[in-house]
């Protein structure tokens, strides 16, 4: 068994209106030194795969096909073996 932790973020250079709003709110709270905020998505997948190589290959494919939109988003993921 594996657990994949996937982080999806807007590509650098793509305007992030949510991040901008959060940054503004933080500044109002007195955290004016926050230079930038980017809001993304965090997905956790539990995978019944016997093999790390296959799990990694499929998670990458899932990200490319559905979980991230390659036009505007980047993704990274970590794969961790977990007990069944």
């Amino acid at each position, binding site marked *: 068994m594996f657990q994949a932790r996937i982080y999806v973020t807007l590509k650098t250079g*793509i305007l992030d209106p949510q991040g901008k709003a959060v940054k503004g709110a933080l500044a109002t709270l007195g955290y004016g030194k926050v230079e930038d905020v980017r809001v993304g998505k965090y997905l956790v997948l539990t995978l019944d795969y016997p093999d790390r190589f296959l799990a990694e290959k499929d998670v990458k494919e899932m990200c490319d096909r559905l979980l991230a939109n390659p036009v505007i988003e980047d993704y990274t993921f970590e794969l961790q073996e977990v007990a069944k």
Partner: protein
Amino acid sequence: MKFGVVVFPGSNCDMDCYHVIDQVLGHPVEYIWHREQGLAGYDCVILPGGFSYGDYLRTGAIARFAPLMDAVSAFAARGGLVLGICNGFQILLEAGLLPGAMRRNDSLQFRCHDVYLRVENANTPFTNRYRPGQVIRMPIAHGEGNYYADPETLAELNREHRIIFRYCTGDGDVAPEANPNGSLENIAGICNKDGNVLGLMPHPERCSEEILGYDDGKALFMSVLHWWGLKREREVVARG
């Protein structure tokens, strides 16, 4: 001319589209459930507005894998007319039938009001009943209509006259203050290379009858009928 209106779980403008085709245009129309596999017999397919699959993950991201979408792609490749309105436009982007992607509105607000649009290309199956440069009014209702495409794609869209509608002022000025969502170059609607797939954020089906205040959207549907009529004539002539 036979129309089909695709119904996804969460579509909510399907009945409006059906009503316009049936009652305003007086043409045959059927609902097509997203689990169906084929589109035989249809001439124009409409992907209506709404919140398919609750807009989960990204707008249109899950709907684009509905069983019917393979048939929609094949239908478009054969030259069938595909019209994506609002969420329908978002689904066409996710499906890769149109280039680019939608981001959250730059205001972070769901914008629900009338906008002015400039008809940038009146030589398409969907806009031939408008005048080039005509300023029309349509309602918008979306939270994610902030169109993005990379610079190369944007240049290609411009070069090939595939930007069909832009947000503008009442005088037709494509100005930043007329942009309701932050879309690049005030883009409100684009088409594919062959011109048979159109996606737009505004709702023509909500303004196709005088009783609703104005009917600037009607010409879009009339364009489709006109184009279809000309195509049929050409086919008859070709057959002798």
